[in-house]
């Protein structure tokens, strides 16, 4: 256990030493909420959003954004680099299994996502009076399911790409459509119905839907939960089967 903690702390420290990653993972989602909140129109209730304000909607989207950046862009690149550079192989010669390093990297990404998500909620609440999730337990559940679903896709990418650079490229390629369906450019509430339905089956679309439902006082819908568990099972198992240590 103490080795796992040491490795996790170490991974977090390494993450903080990458200025771009540290900024985008920890601060950018909160900054985005801050910027959007400064636009007066976005602080007025909108009929299109069922009486919600744009800023209310974007808090959930910003939380999903954190997960996408860490799980799809950062984590696969780090793990693929660890394999490419022989770091996992070196670890295989020590009493600590490389699996522990992998778990520590996942834990570090999750901790970062939690801190960043909390920051988003705090900025929304304090600066723009966005209500905290009405169904808080549901929000945590939706968050964890979304994190697990997205991270297992990230693990799968790390398992199949040959290099860290390729990991980053594939991750970025997945990032944009994923965030599109999560509503980063066009909130799900104003998407045409068919587009929203497609989004329901994407990891971040389902994740954002679950988060939004919890923000407005409901438990995440069964569909969202099932979709996310599905991603976890399918990509988690595939990653476990395909992951090469060297």
């Amino acid at each position: 256990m103490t080795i796992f903690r040491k490795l996790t702390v170490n991974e977090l420290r390494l993450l903080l030493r990458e200025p771009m990653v540290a900024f985008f993972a920890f601060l950018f989602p909160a900054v985005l909420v801050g910027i959007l909140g400064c636009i007066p129109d976005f602080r007025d209730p909108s009929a299109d959003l069922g009486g919600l304000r744009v800023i209310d909607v974007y808090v959930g989207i910003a939380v999903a954004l954190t997960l996408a950046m860490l799980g799809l862009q950062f984590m696969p690149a780090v793990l693929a680099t660890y394999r490419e550079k022989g770091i996992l192989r070196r670890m295989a010669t020590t009493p600590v299994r490389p699996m522990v390093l992998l778990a520590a990297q996942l834990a570090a990404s999750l901790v970062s996502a939690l801190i960043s998500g909390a920051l988003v909620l705090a900025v929304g609440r304090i600066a723009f009076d966005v209500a905290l999730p009405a169904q808080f337990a549901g929000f945590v559940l939706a968050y964890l399911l979304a994190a697990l679903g997205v991270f297992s896709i990230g693990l799968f990418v790390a398992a199949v790409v040959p290099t860290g650079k390729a990991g980053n490229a594939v991750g970025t390629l997945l990032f944009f459509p994923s965030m599109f369906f999560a509503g980063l450019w066009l909130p799900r509430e104003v998407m045409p119905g068919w587009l929203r339905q497609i989004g329901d089956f994407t990891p971040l679309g389902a994740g954002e839907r679950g988060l939004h439902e919890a923000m407005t006082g409901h438990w995440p819908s069964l569909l969202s939960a099932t979709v996310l568990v599905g991603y976890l099972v399918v990509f988690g198992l595939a990653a476990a089967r395909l992951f090469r240590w060297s």
Partner: protein
Amino acid sequence: MAVIEVQNLRKRYGDTVAVRDVSFTVDRGEIFGILGPNGAGKTTTVECIAGLRTPDDGTITVLDRRPRDPELRKLVGVQLQESELPEKMSVREALELYSAFYPEPADWRALARDLGLDEKLGTRFAKLSGGQKQRLSIALALIGNPRIAILDELTTGLDPQARRDTWGLIESIRDRGVTILLVTHFMEEAERLCDRLAVIDRGEVVALDTPAGLVAAMSSEQRIRFRPSAPLDDSLLLAAPEVASVRHHGSLLEVTGSGNLLFVVTSLLASHQIVAHELRVEQDNLDDAFVRLTQRTAEEK
């Protein structure tokens, strides 16, 4: 007493046979070298011993255990080729972290001092020179106080001074009772460090001996070079049964042969009142023995 036993090891990757048939034993407390040209199967052999690869055939025991036994990870330190660390991890962080992996680690500060890394503790991996990275890699292999250290291409990338310093360190580690398995393609390193050597070529052991034994076995021929003070008829030299050939390089004469060659040649010269200037007796070193060994197996194929 053997701490590593390798018997009829065989390993292929797809259609390429990396290791055809390798057997040897390594005794407690010795420095055992594996020598061979590039692509001979050296690294594959040690990776099988380190438990990183599964042999297709043959048996390996390390400290009476199977190579993949988790217990061995505490007892065997491994330094691999091309094994890096995260770019932004400092030397101190790496040493501290890796020493936490082991139940009875060595004092990492002392290790850093012995390897000349004590002034680089705050430096991040990406900023280290090739030699410093290599020394850190050696430190990490020794940090668990292993009973066996496997070192692959130990001094590749080190400058001559750092190489000699590292040799000194390896000898001091052996003096503490650690058995060392060394992969190298530096003859000087093998000659200086190794108690015994296995020469591997094309996936097979082609010779197994002490460095001096290898040289002696391979060099049946002696070579004498000198500048005679007066012209000398070749036939005089060739008349002696010990002399195999006489060659002229300008005014320099090269005589090859066997047996008591030096005595035969010098007494012949003396009886003709010729003085041999710049007389040199050339003896094979490990380099020559190695080249001859690997050439011989190439011709046999």
